[in-house]
């Protein structure tokens, strides 16, 4: 691997194989998959094809049985679990499908939480409170809402707070696991605009997983998980 691709490569998966404990067959077999810095990628796949598992492997919460998953050149499998947690805190922002926020914290504290677990992101954010407030305004939440409890917000507002949290401190990679599936169409469009814009502002790569193909055209790169996961490919080929 040349040094230039090493620099540009944010995430690289090579010869990876993952099987859940006690499962009889592999869940994911991926020969090669790369993400470059700042790239926005749409990963499509039907439910139950291992999307969430792949995201856990990318975020270093799970480690593969074989092969490598590297984030910024670090092989997750080579790191201790404490190092994995730190690397994730420093470089990965994560947006769940829904229920992203701790219900007992205020909107602002939920955003600041990302900086609490990562000194690096707190450092990059500068004045963390000000940055968090700026991001919240950016995603359309005005000052009176910052003090509210996260559980008092609408689903759309919650997802926007989650986006602000995922982006504070400019992580290198933002992972979004079907973040729009709980939103109606109008909200979905505005959320997508916002998410792509703030990712671009922060220079963060976005790995966006969804089964909703209508969103795909907004991304620089579109992929189908079934096409890169050889387990599924094999299953489809063999009748």
């Amino acid at each position, binding site marked *: 691997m040349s040094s230039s691709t090493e620099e540009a490569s944010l995430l690289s998966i090579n010869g990876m194989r993952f099987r859940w404990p006690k499962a009889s067959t592999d869940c994911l077999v991926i020969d090669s998959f790369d993400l470059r810095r700042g790239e926005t990628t749409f990963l499509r796949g039907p439910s139950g094809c291992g999307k969430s598992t792949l995201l856990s492997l990318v975020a270093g919460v799970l480690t593969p049985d074989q092969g490598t998953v590297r984030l910024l050149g670090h092989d997750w499998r080579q790191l201790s679990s*404490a190092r994995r*947690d730190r690397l994730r805190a420093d470089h990965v922002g*994560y947006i769940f499908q829904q229920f992203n926020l701790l219900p007992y914290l205020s909107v602002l504290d939920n955003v600041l939480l990302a900086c609490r677990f990562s000194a690096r992101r707190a450092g990059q954010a500068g004045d963390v409170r000000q940055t968090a407030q700026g991001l919240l305004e950016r995603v359309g939440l005005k000052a009176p809402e910052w003090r509210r409890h996260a559980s008092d917000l609408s689903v759309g507002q919650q997802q926007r707070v989650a986006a602000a949290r995922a982006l504070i401190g400019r992580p290198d990679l933002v992972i979004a696991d079907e973040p729009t599936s709980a939103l109606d169409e109008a909200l979905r469009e505005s959320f997508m605009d916002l998410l792509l814009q703030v990712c671009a502002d922060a220079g963060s790569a976005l790995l966006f997983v969804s089964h909703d193909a209508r969103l795909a055209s907004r991304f620089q790169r579109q992929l189908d998980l079934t096409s890169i996961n050889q387990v599924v490919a094999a299953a489809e080929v063999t009748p």
Partner: protein
Amino acid sequence: MKALFSLAVHSAWNRRFVLSLVMLSIALSTFLLLGIERIRSDVRENFSQSVSGTDLIVGARTGSVQLLLYSVFRIGSATNNIRWSSVQAVGQHKAVAWTVPISLGDSHRGFAVVGTSRGYFEHFRYGDQQPLVVEKGKPFEAVFDAVLGAEVAERLGYVIGDHVVLSHGDGKMSANDHADKPFTVVGILQRTGTPVDRSVHIGLDGMEAIHLDWVAGAPLPGMAVPADQVSRYDLTPKKVTALLVGLKSRAAVFSVQRSISEFEGEPLMAILPGVALDELWDVVGIGERGLLAMSLLVSLVSLAGLVAVITAGLDQRRRELAILRALGAGPRQILWLLALEGTLVTLCGLLIGAGICAMAIAALGDVSGSRLGVALHLQAPSLSEWALLSGVLASGVVASLVPGWRAYRLSLIDGLSPRI
């Protein structure tokens, strides 16, 4: 750690209703624990303060604890008295500096009447070798003079010059009143915090005088002796209940004790108050330990409640754990988060319990002093109380590791996809 602490506080506050119930149960068990410990130590304190400077207590042969209890604490009653000749014989022993006879058995409205000599006010010591102080008036001189303990005067509202009627025995039968021979209050003692406060002191001659016309515990019909006639009779007591003895030198205490127990006139025994008190604690200690063990069990039960509540709540919090994991919290941090929460609840429970205990002592300490004779004092926790508190806290921390461990397991199993 600071981030975890603030998270734990917020998270606990979010579930404050259930957790405050657990906290309350911990607070009550702490109250119980501290209360029992405080009563125990203050009872001991009160007892050991009650007599000092008395080297030996002499009485008819009985148990040494029993002799101590009735002669000093007015608890229980003597089975046998000692003859006046024996009292005189002990007083003549060459090692004996002073003797103070004590004659018990009568009462005044529930307070014990102590027949004694004037030497009582001179020789009796309590606490740290403190002498009795006559706050108002003077010690008794005439036959029908009485000196009241502070508590008696205060509770019954007596002043110098008032007349009091003593009752034979415990005063439950009015027929047994010595109404024909009332006593005059001539002195009131300063408060001592000992049974002296709850005693009516009269001279031995007065004690003899009111029983002149009594035989075998009842007035003799047709034999009444008017009060102004008593001086015609010999008022030297024939028997007393016990004898307090002070020695010239403490070194002689065991030889005097032996010679008293070998006294040929009648069977006597002499006890060292400190030794008898230790024997008493040996007996009482069993009960004390039982109570303490019981309240420790109550604490354990309340901590078990803590574990149950936090652990049961975990299933609803698996989403929360996944969010924290995604933000970079490790399973170990999740463990500490839960352990911290349990520890905080335990700590608050302890503080509230200690607060309730302090308030209860402040509010009821005086009442218990006057009603039960055990004054409770508000003071900084003693060493043993600190030990109990830190023991409960340590158990709380250990107990909190249980939900912590469960959360650790859950966060490993769930990762970013909680199975709810």
